[in-house]
């Protein structure tokens, strides 16, 4: 991927091809509830973790709230900010000892857990190559996901009650190619992106596609898919982490432009 990305940087440095349409603002309200799975084993802030979100905690989709996005899409650049939040809940009897933020929940303990993920994404899109109805560009940005983890464990036999909570922010750079199409006299907009990087043996990938249709000039509907995947094999990063995280799903929304 080194050559294509470098080529994209080179293209972005070239003068713009012709004049594009004037910039437009977009405001959207969207609903997005991706699946969540993964495991964490290692140390963070001096406290140990050893837990699998699905196999141990049984986390499943819970409630979700409306997210929103604000965009400016100009002829050569675009700036996007979006925010959404999701809740996941689980209630499982542990089949092994798990550790959350240094607190051990012994096997056989009923653990009720919840995870709230709050995503803030800021993206700068540079349109490097533009043709009528099509553009190819580069995204530069950051996506910070704030995780709130709460777990309570109670064993009705030993009557031992344990709690653990953790709040941490995972910021990930968003660098990668993006492309877009428009058709039907600008009533149909389609965008896609792939953001990713690798460091040592750790890797991160974030891919998505977004389709917007405007039955009226200023108001439309949007549908999108989004998939995020992190891999940190043991020994790849400090803290001796062995972790994976997968989130993927589809969303719907209303979008206004002016």
């Amino acid at each position, binding site marked *: 991927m080194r050559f294509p990305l470098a080529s994209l940087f080179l293209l972005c440095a070239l003068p713009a091809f012709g004049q594009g349409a004037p910039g437009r603002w977009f405001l959207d309200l969207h609903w997005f509830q991706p699946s969540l799975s993964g495991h964490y084993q290692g140390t963070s802030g001096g406290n140990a973790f050893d837990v699998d979100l699905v196999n141990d905690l049984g986390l499943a989709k819970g409630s979700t709230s409306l997210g929103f996005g604000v965009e400016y899409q100009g002829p050569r650049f675009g700036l996007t900010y979006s925010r959404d939040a999701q809740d996941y809940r689980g209630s499982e009897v542990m089949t092994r000892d798990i550790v959350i933020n240094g*607190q051990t929940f012994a096997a*056989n303990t009923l653990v009720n857990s919840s995870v709230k993920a709050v995503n803030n994404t800021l993206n700068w899109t540079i349109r490097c190559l533009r043709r009528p109805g099509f553009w190819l560009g580069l995204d530069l940005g950051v996506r910070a996901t704030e995780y709130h983890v709460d777990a309570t464990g109670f064993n009705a*036999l*030993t009557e*031992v009650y344990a709690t653990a909570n953790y*709040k*941490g922010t995972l910021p990930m750079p968003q660098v990668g190619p993006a492309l877009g199409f428009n058709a039907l006299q600008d009533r149909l907009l389609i965008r896609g992106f792939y953001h990713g990087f690798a*460091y040592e043996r750790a890797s991160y990938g974030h891919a998505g596609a977004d389709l917007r249709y405007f039955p009226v000039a200023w108001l439309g509907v949007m549908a999108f898919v989004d998939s995020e995947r992190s891999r940190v094999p043991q020994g790849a990063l400090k803290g001796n982490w062995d972790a994976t995280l997968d989130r993927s799903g589809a969303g719907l929304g209303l979008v206004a432009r002016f």
Partner: protein
Amino acid sequence: MNTGPGWCALLVLALVGCGGNSGSTSVSGTDAASLRNSPAGVSTLAFMDLELIRPDALSGASGLPAGVGPVVQSPAARPAGLAAHASLGSSPVTLGFTNVTGANGGVMSGTITLAWATVGATTTYTETFNDLTVTMTVQVNGQPATRTWVYAGTQVIAVTGTTAVFSIPPAGPDPGSITATLTDNTVAPPVVKTWKFGISSQAPLTMDWTIPAAVSLAGEFSFTLPGVDLITVDILPPLTWNTTTQPVCSYPLSGTLTLDLVNAAAGASSASVTFGPSCGHAAFDGASLTLGGN
């Protein structure tokens, strides 16, 4: 996707550095008093009390627990067919408890009546808990208050060679169980709960003392609080005692109880109690409790 350039790695590290974290943890219920009063504690400690007098001691292979001994030798003329016992005298015998500490740290008092008969290679001991009581005194608001456990019922131990099989005779008004009644005077009004101790007929408690340094006990038993809790206990690996060490330890030095609870309100739950490595030490899902301790 490997972008390679060092700036990317620097960006990643800078961003990760921005990711703060915080959190807290708490745990309650691992203190000795809480563990003793939990369903797992009740099952474990009452079982230890009920099986304090092991069949290897009854058969003379080892000594009775300190403080336990015959208080009445009767009757003078035993029924025909009952054999004399080398260490206990003639059957039946009443065993009394003097300065004996229960598994929960309380004081044991009362008696057990022991009768036995030998038919062929098997000696069958009938152990009747008359009024065996464990009294634990605690301070509540600066005043002494008691929790008492009273054991009542009968268990039968059939000894053949160096193997014993336990059972509870299906007779009487409450067939197939020994009752363990708790009267808790530390709360107002006092709480009274009567647990029932049962021995599995499919996997009866079985003890073997062929190797004195590894007296073992395996099998299944149960504790039931009618209408509330049903606890089944599987012993695996077997509980082991060592009768060759001094001082003698009344408690297992290894082995695990796996407890499964069906609670009328809370549903199913499980726990494990692992004994050892030192005398009197037990770990309830990792939380330590000293048996016979305060």
